[in-house]
């Protein structure tokens, strides 16, 4: 593995930041996907969409300067950037569902060979509700999953077939983990890049789904 001090989560966020379209409108999920904002190039022209009703999401509000009428989807006070606009939930989800969002980045519990995503519940254990995730995954032009390659107990999360309830069917386009960047194609999953210090064999061993290793395999 790499000897750099960058955390796994930051490595994933850095790679996803390079995948986002210049000047695009992007929604970042709560948690690891939020880190992507730290690595957007200054001239990216990207505006972030906050599902509760604005475009132009900025960094966290500094302590003592919170405006509680501007929070993110987790209820945390945030700031806005120049170019921002506010709107209601019907508009927010029309933007999401109507194909006006260039990309969405979300975490996952499981992803499979068909691009199915499970990220909103574990029956009997964790039933928080889907929030905006189902609409985001159906509506965004590019759906990027950001997650650790295997679960905390070392089990593969990229499977032949998801076992948990689905968030959406056949909507995932790209999976970025601490080990690899995988593209979902109509033929199955393609291993397009490996993280520095990781071999394709290690990725295959940590993945239950079948992977086609690209001839032009790259490193990130």
């Amino acid at each position, binding site marked *: 593995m790499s000897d750099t001090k960058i955390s796994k989560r930051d490595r994933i966020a850095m790679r996803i930041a390079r995948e986002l379209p210049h000047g695009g409108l992007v929604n970042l999920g709560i948690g690891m996907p939020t880190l992507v904002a730290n690595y957007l190039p200054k001239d990216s022209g990207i505006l972030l969409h*906050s*599902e*509760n*009703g*604005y475009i132009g999401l900025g960094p966290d509000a500094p302590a003592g300067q919170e*405006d*509680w*009428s*501007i*929070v993110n*989807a*987790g*209820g945390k006070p945030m700031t806005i950037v120049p170019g921002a606009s*506010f*709107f*209601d*939930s*019907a508009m*927010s*989800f029309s933007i*999401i*569902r109507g194909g006006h969002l260039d990309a969405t980045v979300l975490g996952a519990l499981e992803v499979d060979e068909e691009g*199915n995503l499970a990220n909103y519940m574990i029956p009997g254990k*964790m*039933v*928080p*509700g*889907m*929030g*905006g*995730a*189902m*609409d985001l995954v*159906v*509506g965004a032009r590019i759906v990027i999953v950001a997650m650790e390659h295997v679960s905390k107990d070392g089990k593969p999360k990229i499977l032949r077939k998801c076992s948990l*309830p*689905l*968030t*959406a*069917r*056949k909507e995932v386009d790209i999976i970025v983990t601490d080990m690899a960047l995988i593209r979902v194609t109509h033929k199955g999953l393609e291993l397009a890049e490996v993280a520095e210090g990781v071999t394709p064999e290690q990725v295959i061993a940590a993945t239950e789904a079948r992977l086609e290793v690209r001839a032009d395999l790259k490193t990130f």
Partner: protein
Amino acid sequence: MKQIKTAQEAIAAIKDGDSIMAGGFMCCGQAYTLVDAILEKGLKNLTLITNDAGLPGKGAAKLIEQKRVGKLVASHIGLNPEAGKQMNSGEMKVELVPQGTLAERIRAAGAGLGGVLTPTGIGTAVEEGKQKVTVDGREFLLEKPLSAEYAFIKAHTVDKYGNAYIAKAEKNFNIVMALAARTVIVEAEHIVEPGQLDPDRVTLPGALVHVIVEAKK
């Protein structure tokens, strides 16, 4: 001109078992004064329609914590542990609805539509028991309208005709919900005379508002 009432007067007609829509997203843009009046009055077994179960100790989350809700219709309950507990024990029925579908079902009820066709939820547990409709080769779910007896709307400023300015990210569900309830109560930080709110700044037309309440400072 609309009736300006105290919170207690505004909710006087609400009974146990009634349905209430409450705007707000993680408590941002929620009518706290009206929620507190419900708690004080001791109402229970309410149907609460709101985006999320909120954050512990804040706004409509208190209705759940104090066991006043018989049925919750929401998109997310994960940040209020009490909601999950009551759902698992069966004390509170919970209907989880994708957030965009929730907004459109409410809007449909208020816009006189028979429902909406959405691709959201196809191939998931959300489609169970719902009619599927194919339009130009693409499959959609028929989601039915959702209305309520009362809507609690939070505004920054309201004039005496009920025209409201809802600030920043407080708009969320506060606009569609005002379309979909029989009685719409607006709680505002500022109540102003007609003409003092620029018509161009009105985010919610007064025609949809029945009662105005001043928010507690």
